[in-house]
């Protein structure tokens, strides 16, 4: 016929857009890779056994982040333990139980609002409400409660998105066989949505680990290790600065070596968390899909 398929037509807009895509991608990939490399190069020399296992001593003039590592762990765990069930539950309600209407719109709207509130506001609120009104002061629990509010929408949203991508036919299939709603959710939806839920949790962990403004006024900046077994319990009522807080403090004191050292530790930490969750979600997929 008129046009041979062997002659490629040139579509200028396609070429331009493709070029833009490649340019944008190379830019962001280079930037992001550059950030990681630069941080590693600058920070790796600060890292030593002492750096990882001791706490700072102004008498000996040494520096270490053991206390901050532990604090970070505490805050991540406590926050997730509280926020994950609430976030996932909320998503399940919104997606699977609620009839569309005012109520759902209100909840979705407020969840959106919550996700947009700047961390500094969470910090102020946490300081005033958990710290002063509830009398928890500067403590790990104050920080964790504050962060719970902060990461909640992240988990809710991701779970919701994941639930939305589960085909409707799975629901009707299961319900059509007489499965009750919660049973259907448990056996079909949650496994199918698990990768999405885990993405939400990854993002949440990332946010917690990376948070500074909301923690500065709530969890404080303590860096001591618990003195005894009981100390591990009472620690949640004591002030504790996460790695990021310590990084910020080092940075504002121009202790750049230490700051980059902590940055490296943070990168490795986030990497480990990501790998772990990947592994877990992979396992889930294998179990349910194959």
């Amino acid at each position, binding site marked *: 016929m008129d046009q041979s398929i062997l002659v490629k037509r040139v579509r200028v807009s396609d070429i331009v857009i493709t070029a833009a895509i490649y340019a944008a991608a190379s830019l962001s990939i280079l930037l992001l890779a550059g950030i990681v490399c630069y941080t590693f190069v600058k920070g790796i020399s600060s890292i030593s056994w002492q750096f990882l296992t001791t706490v700072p001593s102004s008498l000996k003039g040494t520096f270490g982040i053991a206390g901050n590592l532990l604090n970070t762990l505490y805050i991540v765990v406590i926050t997730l333990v509280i926020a994950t069930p609430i976030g996932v539950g909320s998503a399940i309600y919104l997606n699977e139980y609620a009839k569309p209407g005012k109520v759902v719109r209100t909840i979705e709207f407020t969840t959106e609002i919550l996700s947009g509130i700047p961390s500094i506001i969470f910090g102020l609120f946490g300081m005033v409400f958990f710290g002063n009104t509830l009398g928890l002061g500067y403590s790990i629990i104050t920080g964790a409660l504050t962060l719970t509010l902060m990461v909640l929408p992240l988990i809710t949203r991701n779970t919701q998105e994941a639930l939305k991508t589960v085909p409707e036919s*799975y629901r009707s*299939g299961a*319900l059509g066989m*007489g*499965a009750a709603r919660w049973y259907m959710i448990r056996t079909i939806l949650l496994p199918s949505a698990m990768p999405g839920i885990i993405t939400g949790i990854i993002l949440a962990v990332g946010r917690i680990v990376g948070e500074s403004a909301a923690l500065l006024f709530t969890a404080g900046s303590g860096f001591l290790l618990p003195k005894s077994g009981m100390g591990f319990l009472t620690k949640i009522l004591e002030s504790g600065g996460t790695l990021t807080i310590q990084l910020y403090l080092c940075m504002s004191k121009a202790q750049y070596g230490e700051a980059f050292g902590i940055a490296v530790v943070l990168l490795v930490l986030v990497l480990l968390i990501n790998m772990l969750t990947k592994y877990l979600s992979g396992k889930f997929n294998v179990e349910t899909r*194959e």
Partner: protein
Amino acid sequence: MNNAKISTKKLNLYYGANHALKDVDMDITANAITAFIGPSGCGKSTFLKTLNRMNDLVDGVKIDGEVTLDGENIYDEKVDTTLLRKKVGMVFQQPNPFPMSIYDNIAYGPRIHGIKSKARLDEIVEESLKGAAIFDEVKDRLKKSALGLSGGQQQRLCIARALAVQPEVLLMDEPTSALDPISTLKIEDLMEDLKKKYTVVVVTHNMQQAARVSDETAFFLVGEVVEKDITSNIFARPKDKRTEDYITGRFG
């Protein structure tokens, strides 16, 4: 009709403002195959779904009138829809296997209803797959994902899954529209078998199929049941002009 398994009286259904079912009165005979025919969009699927309350899941649906199963109103507040849907099973128009292994797909229903014994489940899975004429094709990969099957295989899997809970009534929404003739024939044979114990309702676009397998046929048009009768009567001596026109391909 005394041995009506399901009866509807003055059933009306609205999707918001769309009046999708209009004053449907119907008795569905026990241990028989009832076929629903009618042009696309006339409400066959909708009616089918009111029979096991799958329409409850659609937002903005309003249902008026009565549907009884063995004389009990299934829209009564006290009805346990779980039990209702165990008794009134369903096969959908589009194959919808769950994202799990073939075995787990079939075992899903029995597990819902409390069967835990591995041996018993194995038995049910095998029986059901055989019943749906797919056992031989999948017996070596029961532990593989059901999503890896072809469309036709998936649909037969779904039929097997519905059989696994041993329903009393089986609703099938164009169950063979994605199948090749051989599988279709097997399924049709299977329906014949099933009606000995069960009540079967099947929506079909294939007039030959309706004529071949069903004992009774109902003809739907824009939300109304124009005519319902013994199948041979519908095809040989339709009472309504519209039925005749449709069957002879004069409109649609």
